[in-house]
């Protein structure tokens, strides 16, 4: 086998093992962080889900399926996950939904945890900041 063949073979091997973002979504078993908001008279919810590899997905309750909206660098995503635990969000009990609510959700193989609130002025500032940071990244990726 010559050098060219090896390179071609390597390319085939690499790209055959690459999954599309949506394929990854279906098969992903790692931790997920999501933010979102919704409720009101319509009951519509928007949720933005971050994977550890940096992929962001969008789920809207009025639309079918999940949409891939873009990626941030994986190390940035990992830092976000790390911050979630460093800031001890796991220990925060925040379950104050209202007619229109905002939320931060974390889930992995072991547990799920959700912070939900209606009035942003009545929560710990770090929760609001964390939410806003993720929201800004979503906006940057999707223009929304």
């Amino acid at each position, binding site marked *: 086998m010559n050098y060219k063949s090896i390179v071609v073979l390597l390319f085939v091997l690499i790209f055959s093992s690459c999954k599309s973002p949506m394929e990854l979504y279906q098969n992903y078993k790692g931790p997920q962080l999501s933010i979102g908001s919704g*409720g009101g008279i319509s*009951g519509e*919810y928007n949720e933005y889900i971050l994977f550890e590899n940096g992929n962001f997905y969008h789920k809207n309750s*009025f639309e079918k399926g999940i949409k891939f909206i873009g990626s941030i660098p994986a190390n940035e995503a990992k830092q976000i996950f790390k911050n979630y635990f460093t800031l001890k969000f796991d220990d925060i009990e925040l379950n104050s939904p209202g007619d*229109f609510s905002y939320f931060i959700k974390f889930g992995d193989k072991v547990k799920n945890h959700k912070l939900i609130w209606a009035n*942003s002025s009545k929560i710990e500032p770090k929760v609001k900041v964390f939410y*806003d940071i993720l929201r800004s990244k979503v906006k940057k990726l999707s223009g929304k």
Partner: protein
Amino acid sequence: MKIKHIFLTIILIFPFVIFAQNGIDQKNNIGALKNNNGNVNAENIDNPDLQGINPLNPNKQNDENKKSGVFNIVSFSKSQISSSDITSKIIAIKSEKRENPLAIYISNNIKDFSNIHNPKKIAYSILGDPTVKESMKIDNENNFHIENIKTDNLGITHIKMNQFYKGLMIFGGQIYIHYKKNKTYSVINGRWFQGKYTEENINQGIKYRNKNHFVFNLSETHIKNIIKTDLESLRIKIKDFSISRDQFIPEKQWTIQKMLFQPKGEQYLKPVYIVEIVADPLHRFKYILDSNRGEILRRQKEYCSLIDDSHPPTPQGAVVAHAKDLNGVTRDINVLTINNHYYMIDASRAMFNSTKSNLPDEPYGVIWTIDANNTNPNNDNFSNSLTHVHSGNNTWNALSVSAHFNAGFAYDYYKTKFNRNSINGNGGNVVSIINVSDEDGSGMDNAFWGGSAMYYGNGNKAFTSPLAKALDVSGHELTHGVIQSTANLEYYGESGAINESFADVFGAMMDRDNWQMGEDVVSLQYFPSGALRDLSNPHNGATQGSYAWQPANTSEKYTGTEDNAGVHTNSGIPNFAFYKFATAVGKEKAENVYYRALTFYLTKSSKFVDLRVAIEQAADDLYGTNVKNAASAAFTAVGIGSGGSTGSGSGNQGELSINPGQDFIICTDDNQNGLYLLNGNGQVLNNGSPISNTPIQSKVSITDDGSNIIFVGQDNKIHYIYINWQTGDISETIIQDQAIWRNAVVAKDGSHLAALYSEVDNKIAVYDFGVQEWKDFELKNPTTVQGVELGNVEFADAMEFDYSSEWIMYDCKNKIGSNNGLDIEYWDIGFINVWNNDNNYFADGRTEKLFSELPEDVSIGNPVFSKNSPNIIAFDYISNETYNILGANINTGEVKLIFNNADLGYPNYSKDDKKIIYDYYDNGYNIAIIDLNQDKISSVVNSAKYLVNGARWGVWFANGIRDLTTGVYDIYPNAVTQTIVYPNPMSNTLNITTKDFNSEVEITIFDILGNKKLQKTLTLSDLNLSVDISNLKTGNYLVKITDGIKYYSGKIVVFK
């Protein structure tokens, strides 16, 4: 053995019953009882036409063997009351039957009181005259107290009398008695409340009554504060006359009286405070306050002024603008002009507080529309982005007009309908914020209540118009504010769904032409039905799982965690219940009932079953039984049963959970000698021996857990059999040894006993084991029911307590008398209210009939409740000496044939309501059995067969324990297993040993009715805890222990 000891026995044993497998032998044959599985030779006809009252083919009967029993019907034609019986001439026709107080004018010329000189005695002599009492329908003339007596120059004496009830004056009940000097003439005029009507209607307000006295909960200070606050909203200050130099100083500035009052539009009397206040030399008011919560029922001016100051003058600069809204309709809206600039601030309502307001930036008591300028409340700069909606020339854009007008409309709705002073009930601002964007700055497809204001998006995809366009959207959002200020339902799970439902309900009531929500603003692409939601059709033309779909029944309930466990989805279930209820009773009654439930009965964590209870109670408060029943039917139809929400959707199945115990039947032989215990297949148990050798006179009555059996023996004494299902021991004793009885029944929870005297009369005697008192209730028929004369009750025979233990269903013989001696006698079925669980005391004995009118020659009797559906009964129906067993659904009014019988059947439902057993006479008594259809009131064709020969009066029961109440005994998922409460029974101390909890725990104790009796938070210092329960009375209770995550739940018995 005394009643008290029996009660001890009952309550000691009641919680400890478990399924018994040992101790009761299973034998097949005994004596004259045989088990024959032959088919009954009778015809079954499905779905007969009962309209013509001749629905059935008669069955062949052997007259010689036909038992001449209590159904001794004599049929004659009716006659008229002779006009010569009328001794008192009514000059004026009485006002419309339901009007109160009644206007009356009576001239009574026949009363001779020439030998009485004292005016007071004359007054009571006239009033106490039987003909006068009959005409006036009063029970007791002493309920009228003399206010004053005057004699004019014509020699006519005028006595003014006020009407009282149990020491309280009835507001508006006042009459005059006039008589002439020579005492040959007397006239009575005035307005008063009929005696019987007063009794019935006062007791509709039973929640205000504690045993024999009325509840007045407010202190004088509290009363004065309520009025002071109200007057301040009118900008009237209460003058301190003690320091006044005015010449005018009122004799008494405050007068507070306790009275009974009929609220406008209602038919009941309630206790109130009548308060007269002289605020200042001009302003005098009379207030009528609810005695329990201080709600202002009426405020009336007691002065006349040229200028109407009921509304405070609007501030300088208040103008009316005429502008088109988003629907293209020109609206009149109230705005404010300050320094030649216009602001969308409506200060025209009575709630406006000019003293506190600093206009335009800090208004108080206004309707206010603000512009968010396309920012989102979650943005940091949101507050700085808010601006007034303003104009230089009093012209306005349609969006702001819609929001402003709708807010005013919603405010007026609550004010006019319910006298609610703004969203928070205290004249708080009603704020609408328009042009709210999504977090990313795009159009928001939503509107929401943000805790102190309504936020409106302008739509994007799902909504094609700004949401402020829709009145029902505004109504929905403002109602969230009302909910926040009242029940404050938690926005999660069923309580959150109820929150959403109420918002939809009142949104739909404001935009009341249809049952749809958001139909003015939704995109058809997203909501093809044209509506966001539809109260009349929760499925909304969508498929299950779609965002546009809602469940219509608890069987379809969403059980996931999205959307706070489905608050927008599951609201479809209570929405549909409201739709059904409002369709049955009318929107006006329905919204009144719902508002009352929201403001008085619902709590933060109310679930669907609590909603049902709240609506039923509110309906009963306001309108009585018929509307309450309509509420019950509506909730049953959506699967919200009185015993907990179910998944069946049928409205019948699962209202009470099926008794988990084994099936048994108790019966007597055809000579009524003794009692036998059978299994559900008709096999005789107890080695073939009777469990009692006592000759019996009445059919037995059994508590729901199958442990306690009551019957009257042929010795006319009340016998009691106790079955210990754990050990198999059966014991019998006499619990009332006076030989004065002919029938006795026990409540399903063992709390009361009802009995009939052997000396036949129209009374039912009821004994309560808690208060240990007897009370006799007299059975009466309504004087007119839809114009039908029902006659007098001669005596009752069969009885059964309902599942609430508050009502007894009975059959009774009636007689309609006539002057020619040809009386009409017939049997029918009624219900009597003997107990009030709220007050934990005897009720007023109000009666109702199953059927308002029976055809001639028809009698019905031996009624029995189904085992799991409190609204389903079966009974004997006799017409022209043909006998049938019918089933009836009290809620829907359906009546169907179960079996065409040969004699009285004494039907009884099986444990699961799938069968009925009944007496079948065929050369002797036998017990037969027939399968029922799912509706429980009709039978499966050709399914009747013999069960036991030579037996009768079978009563089917099970020996398990189940809840007959609502909501208390929830199953908690995190139940614990290493916690013990002891001793049990206990007296003054409850001890807990636990390995499940190790920190702070909350201990709550409920009675069997679900009332919270004790709640404490304790810290576990070691594995043990003690709780002082010396305040608890003797009885059964449920104790719950929780640390917020794990729960213990168990039953205890307290005995003192």
